């Protein structure tokens, strides 16, 4: 061993230096990895600390049963239900648009489209996913709402329908892109087996590929739901910012995210109840996202197909 070292000319000191350098580098890399962990911990900690101050003033019972949300008014009410209703309504409208359209596009792209079409459309879908949401908000307010008002003359200028439709259109690229990946992952021999039995492409797509890719499709829908629930700018611009306990998409209403934006636009002093209320709202937003993700995860698990 020592002979080998002397012939290659590597001294013990140089070897030690390289080993120490490796250790130092590794420590830096671990620290970088831990940033992700600390971010999560910080999010949870900040939300819990600031909302615990909020819940010293507001009882949980009031928070979950009061039907009015007016923390900035003289007659303050702290019922989160109107904001939750707004969030669920816009999400629901968005999903009604995004799930059928996204799935149809994905089936078409994965099972029917010629290679060239797929090569062109896939990057376009990725590009659409990168459009800033504030631009989609502009579309909702200045283009979609007037069209809807032409169809339904009594529709108010701010409404959840227009915001929901635009969010739906916005998440179609995500849903179709992830669904398409899932369907393409279904092995070729499954399709060939189906064709050999005399099934057409549509029958194969609907009865073999879609069930086979179901866990991936569920993941795509969950991704879509998460985006719709957390979507802020479209609803803040197009749905109005007035908390309103209704599930009627034709009405104006605020979502949880729109409320946080509305408060942030004003200049609320640090530590005031209004300031704390956005953290409580954020906590509820996180909880809703988490619930959808847990449900989605268990669905994915239950329907996972192993080949």
């Amino acid at each position, binding site marked *: 061993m020592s002979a080998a070292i002397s012939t290659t000319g590597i001294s013990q000191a140089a070897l030690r230096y390289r080993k120490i350098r490796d250790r130092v580098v*590794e420590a830096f890399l671990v620290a970088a990895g831990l940033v*992700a962990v600390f971010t999560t911990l910080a999010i949870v900690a900040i*939300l819990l600390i600031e909302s615990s101050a909020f819940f010293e003033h507001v009882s949980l019972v009031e928070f979950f049963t009061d039907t009015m949300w007016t923390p900035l008014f003289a007659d303050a009410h702290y019922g989160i239900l109107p904001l939750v209703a707004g969030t669920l309504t816009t999400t629901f409208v968005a999903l009604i648009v995004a799930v059928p359209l996204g799935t149809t596009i994905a089936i078409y792209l994965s099972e*029917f489209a010629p290679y060239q079409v797929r090569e062109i459309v896939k990057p376009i879908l990725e590009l659409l996913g990168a459009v800033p949401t504030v631009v989609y908000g502009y579309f909702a307010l200045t283009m979609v709402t007037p069209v809807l008002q032409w169809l339904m003359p009594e529709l108010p200028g701010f409404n959840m329908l227009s915001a929901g439709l635009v969010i739906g259109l916005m998440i179609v690229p995500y849903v179709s892109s992830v669904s398409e990946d899932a369907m393409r992952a279904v092995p070729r021999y499954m399709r060939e087996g189906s064709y050999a039995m005399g099934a057409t492409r*549509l029958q194969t797509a609907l009865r073999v590929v879609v069930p086979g890719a179901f866990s991936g499709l569920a993941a795509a829908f969950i991704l879509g739901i998460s985006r719709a629930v957390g979507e*802020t700018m479209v609803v803040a611009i197009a749905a109005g910012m007035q908390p309103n306990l209704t599930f009627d998409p034709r009405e104006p209403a605020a979502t949880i995210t729109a409320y946080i934006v509305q408060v942030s636009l004003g200049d609320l002093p640090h530590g005031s109840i209004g300031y704390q209320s956005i953290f409580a709202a954020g906590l509820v937003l996180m909880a809703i*996202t988490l619930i959808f993700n847990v449900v989605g995860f268990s669905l994915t698990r239950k329907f996972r197909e192993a080949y």
Partner: protein
Amino acid sequence: MSSNVASYRNFDALRQGLTRRKMMDQAFVIIGLTVMLACLLILAILFIDLIRDGSARFGLDFFMNFASRRAERAGILAAWVGTSLIMLVTALCAVPVGVAAAIYLEEYAPKNWFTAIIEINVTNLAGVPSIVYGLLALGLFVYQFGLGQSIAAAGFTLALLILPIVIVATRESIRSVPKAIREAAYGLGATRWEVTKDHVLPYSTGGILTGMILGLSRAIGETAPIITIGALSFIAFLPQSPITSEFPFISFKWLNDPFTAMPIQMFNWVSRPDPEFQANAAAAGAILLGMTLLMNAVAIWIRYRFRKKINW
């Protein structure tokens, strides 16, 4: 079942069934194509409309004027300078940390609970709504760390937001480097860091660049988190210049300055009732859109170039 078989002995019935199924196949092709083209067409119309609405404002003045009470004189000077500085901070924070975390997860991490925790966190962070990052930044950066409503706070916030994107993209490109390359380097006595630095990273540069650009293109359009930390929408001055005439010629005072950004400026104009300002909003939106699409096109091009160039 037996009746089915019996009926299929009748060739007319068989042929009818086949024709019907084939027609449904054709019908779906038409439906799928229509739906896809309709979606793309609607979006195309919206984008064209946006550019048309904003076209009245395009011009040098729009870039060189501050926001103003008069729509035709209002410009995006403070906004694009603010956005550029925020992107600088974001890139300088997110890229080194993201790439390092990805290297750790792919090249160093043993398969144990510690690694699993980091991986789960990266996945989860990608799904956290962006406005929650704004709340984190408001509580942590603005008040706990005392950064205030500054460019630094905004840059750090967006860096955390795009960290998962950078990590995932870097990991993918590191993973695509064949094992044989690493083993050859180890075989010659290289240490792990030498293998990573001299062999793995050069081959994955394309993927890392792509991830960085995609992350920044996401950050540039993010509005909600920086509204939450308290970006001002009416700013008629620029941050202090990063380059000074005196030694040491570089100043970091701009990090602490209040700011506005492109998406905030657009949001401010959209939410004004005066229709004159909608043209400003459309123009700002078109520019913002152009910037994101350009960044994405560059990313796609880089990915394509590197994929073509590397031949294992």
